[in-house]
């Protein structure tokens, strides 16, 4: 019985312990849209990203853009948040959620860039085989 009490106390301490930058709780990050399609005419996509995140535990989370050195936005002691960002995209990048001034990532989402045009125009040649319909 005494042992059980010690275990419960220890668990309670762990649960109530403040979250530090070193071990930020995992979160769920949802970003839309996820893909930028670039063709010959436009070298980049002008996109508005709708970013939502949710976590089980309250902590200070910061939303980061891998192309930027500073966070886009931080939420002190929050379990969820939303953010809209309009930006031009020409290369793949990552939105990630982490502690302020920390490198540990609670969640991340990659925004892909698909280039339809090619520097090698042979890749765009139209094959005329009977089975080739694409």
């Amino acid at each position, binding site marked *: 019985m005494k042992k059980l009490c010690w275990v419960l106390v220890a668990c309670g301490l762990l649960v109530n312990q403040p979250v530090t930058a070193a071990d930020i709780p995992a979160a769920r990050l949802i970003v839309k*849209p*996820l*893909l930028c*399609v670039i*063709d*010959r*005419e*436009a*070298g*980049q996509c002008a996109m508005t990203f709708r970013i939502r995140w949710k976590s089980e535990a309250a902590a200070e989370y910061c939303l980061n853009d891998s192309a930027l050195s500073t966070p886009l936005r931080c939420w002190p002691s929050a379990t969820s948040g939303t953010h809209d960002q309009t930006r*031009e995209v*020409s*290369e793949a990048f990552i939105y990630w959620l982490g502690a302020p001034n920390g490198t540990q990532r609670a969640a991340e989402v990659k925004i*892909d*860039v*698909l*280039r*339809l045009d*090619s*520097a*090698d*125009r*042979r*890749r*765009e*040649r*139209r*094959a*005329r*085989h*009977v*089975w*080739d*319909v*694409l």
Partner: protein
Amino acid sequence: MLRCIMRMTGNVLKIAALCGLASVGHAQTEAPDTTASAAVASAAPAPVQSAPRERSWRIGAAFGYGERTNPLIQSDDIPVLVDVDIAWFGKRWFFDNGDVGYTLFDRPSSTTSLMARVNDDRVFFGKTNTRYVNFAYAGNGYTTALPPPTPSSGGNPGGPITGNEEPPPVQVNPPDRDYAIEAGIESLIDGDWGAAELRAFQDVSGTHGGYELSAHYSRRFTAGRLSIAPTIGLSYKSAQMNDYYWGVHRDEASGALPEYHAGAGFNFDGGLVTNYYLTKHLRFALSVNYERLADQIAASPLAEDDYVLAYFSGFAWTF
């Protein structure tokens, strides 16, 4: 034999000269535009980063449902359930789904390559059925069975059968045709106006001894994740080529298949390729292509239709 080789070589040289001149001429007229667009790009506030180096291999597969109609008599349409895309591009050499090429010139607005390919007309002759035909002679208001052709009748049905005897049905087979290896030249030209493909191919396998010239224009329009690319084009096929595939040769002629010699002619085609990109690798593809066969082909006893319609709808994955 020597005359045949010389004639083939002469055709290829003429074709090569035509394509070469077209691409060089185009490169020269495009040069000022290229400079102008570079100047605009350098003045832009946010220069676009150069595209990452592309992989040499391109491998993909599409799964869905499609069909290509078969204009050959007594033949089945060609179902397309899986479309595999395998290509490799080196600095000069490349392989693209069966076509092998060696790039001679790569200019800012055009690329010209020597090519080798397998002719695709032969594919229609791969899905044929045997059919049995009863010959009948209609006259004076009644129908009388005719006996089937015999070797001595030169392939024509014999005289009317007297009495009630039924003639045995005659087996009618579309003739066999071989694949042809063709060599030629291809010029790919593009700009803000779209993309053009000029091709000239000559049979080098001694199968049909003919040649084909083709020109196609396409332009891709992209909006968000959707891209639509309409294409129009035409191809000129020589008499030797059309006659080999679509003629009924003397030794193949019968009462059901009269002797026929196909001449040269133009095929016209138009199509639309639509892709909706779900992820960087996965897309939903919808494509349709209509080809109007040359009158000389359509008039052949071997041709049931004067067109080829191909369509496909499905999901495509590019690795």
